[in-house]
């Protein structure tokens, strides 16, 4: 079962985790990304490519299901303007056994950082606005799943 959402709304980690559970599920793994708030960050705006975003997340979830033995996969990614401490992304998996759940969850979060069409613009207390650049370490984290 694959559940992918792109939304301006916040999500509840407990609700998302419970939805991954069920009979035959022995392991649930999840990751939550949050706005860090370094260096006088006031807000972070996530822009995306609406026609493409859900499909790219769906493709990632399908690749995970094809590669690991999974009961369910959930990806929730927020868009719009967020502030330090806000939740940005939830990636969760469930499986009979922990190794599949944990590896698939790591795959999802590594790959969505470099393959899903989101961009972050930071606004700082002094009025500066900066588009974040993709990092080489993110590309390296993705390539380990090739």
């Amino acid at each position, binding site marked *: 079962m694959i559940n992918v959402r792109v939304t301006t709304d916040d999500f509840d980690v407990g609700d998302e985790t419970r939805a991954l559970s069920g009979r035959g599920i022995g392991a649930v793994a999840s990751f939550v990304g949050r706005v860090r708030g370094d260096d006088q960050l006031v807000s972070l705006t996530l822009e995306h490519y609406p026609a493409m975003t859900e499909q790219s997340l769906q493709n990632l979830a399908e690749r995970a299901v094809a590669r690991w033995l999974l009961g369910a996969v959930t990806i929730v990614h927020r868009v719009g303007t967020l502030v330090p401490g806000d939740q940005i992304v939830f990636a969760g998996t469930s499986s009979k056994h922990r190794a599949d759940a944990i590896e698939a969850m790591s795959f999802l979060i590594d790959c969505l*950082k470099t393959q899903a069409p989101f961009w972050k613009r930071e606004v700082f207390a002094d009025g500066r606005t900066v588009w974040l650049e993709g990092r080489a370490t993110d590309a390296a984290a993705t390539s380990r799943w090739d």
Partner: protein
Amino acid sequence: MTTIKYFSWVRDLVGTGDEFHVVPDTVTDVRGLCQFLAAQSEGHARAFANLDRIRCAVDLNIVDLGAPIAGAGEIAFFPPVTGG
């Protein structure tokens, strides 16, 4: 007529998120389209000044700069993605 979309700082430099162009038949791949678009204005030229920083999706699939564009309905240009 081909829809061209821009995101993030590429859109900021170009000055708009959506354009419609009749692309000449001589422009056959993404790299050629970047050169065609760069000639449209000073902002376009700045956006496409360094193609190492540009990514492209043709009809919602991310492709490399050598990909063909024949028959494409929507082509998007943007920087490397930063989700998660």
